Every structure is written in structure tokens, then in C-alpha cells.
């Protein structure tokens, strides 16, 4: 019943992927930007990025649920995380898909990050 106290760990093992609000137990992982900003997000969403998925399921320290990205700035990493949620929400969706806004100044860096993360 009690879970590990480290911030990168999951809650209990059981998790529902599509129901419940903030109360449903989910696993969160931590992504850290170049400047050290920590982003916590639903592991299911993080895994949409193939690179992250590989890092989290390997035998490296990343599989503890925490990954550092020294080459990705905070602004860009935040945008990537927003994009992963957007992708999860609208993949295979029949509803009209809204545009995903990107600041033109960020495009080059975002493209490199997306390429690296494979998402």
C-alpha cells in the first residue's frame, strides 16, 4: 500500500489509463531540462515519444522514471510535453483537431528536440 518516497517513483502499481480524474492512480515520470526545470507528466503520455519510451524501459538509471535532457531548453521541453498530450488526445480522434500553436522563434529548436525524441 505504501509507495516509495522518491519523487520519481510511481504511486501504486495499479493504474487506469482512461478513466478517473486526478484521483485515479497514475504513474508519473520526470523530465529535466537544460536549466534544471523539472517536468512531471503521466508516464503513458511520455511514452508516446519513442526515445523516452526506450529510455524508460531499459536498464539505465532513466528506468527509475527520471530523465535529463541537457540539450533541451525549458521552453522547448515544455512545448514538447504539451505536444505529447495533444498527440495523445487527438490520435485516432474523429473530432476536429485544433491547430497546435508554435512560436516561430522556437521552431528550429523544437524540430531538433522532436527529432531526437522521435515524436
Amino acid at each position, binding site marked *: 500500500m505504501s*509507495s516509495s*518516497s*522518491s*519523487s520519481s517513483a510511481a*504511486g501504486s502499481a495499479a493504474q487506469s489509463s*482512461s*478513466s*478517473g*480524474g*486526478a*484521483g*485515479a*492512480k*497514475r504513474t*508519473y515520470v520526470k523530465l529535466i531540462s537544460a*536549466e*534544471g*526545470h*523539472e*517536468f*512531471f*507528466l*503521466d508516464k503513458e*503520455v511520455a511514452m508516446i515519444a519513442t526515445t523516452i519510451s526506450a529510455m524508460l524501459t531499459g536498464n539505465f538509471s532513466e528506468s527509475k522514471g527520471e530523465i535529463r535532457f541537457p540539450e533541451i531548453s525549458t521552453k522547448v521541453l*515544455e512545448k514538447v*510535453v*504539451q505536444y505529447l*498530450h495533444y498527440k495523445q488526445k487527438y490520435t485516432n480522434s474523429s473530432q476536429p483537431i485544433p491547430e497546435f500553436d508554435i512560436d516561430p522563434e522556437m521552431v528550429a529548436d523544437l524540430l531538433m528536440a522532436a527529432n531526437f525524441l522521435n515524436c
Partner: protein
Amino acid sequence: MSMYVRVKRQDQTVFLRAEASDTFRTVKVALGDILSLVLDDIKLYGKDKETVLEDEGTLGGFEIGNDDVIFWGQRMDGSTFEPASGN
């Protein structure tokens, strides 16, 4: 799960999965779970960084929607909490 809110404090951002009907108490519990904190040590602030979000309120009730940013402060001592920080 329909949405997420970004809960910020200093150099941390939690992309918290939630529903519009979730109470702020539920949000605090989930946040506490992720950050290894007790819900009593968490104070939630609205988008303006000033409005205190009390336990019984809901995200929807305060018009906090998908991808919106709210803030949280940690209890410092006694009844004093940090103000909202980060962006």
C-alpha cells in the same frame, strides 16, 4: 481522461491529469503523491497567482481548463505558506 493542468512552483511543472469536476482537494492529494508531500503542506493558487483555491472548489468551477496554469506553494511553518512562484 479529458484534460491536464500545469501546476507550477519555482523550477517545477506538474502536468497533472484531471477532470473539470475534480476538487482542489483531489488535486492536492494527487500533487502530494507525485511530489511526496502531505496535502496539508500544499496551498493552491489560481492563474493570477493570488486567488487561493480552497479544497471544496473545483477546476471547472474556477474556469480552469485544459493546459491552464495554476500554482502551488509549500507550507513554511505554522500557518504560513509560500506565495505562488515560477511561471
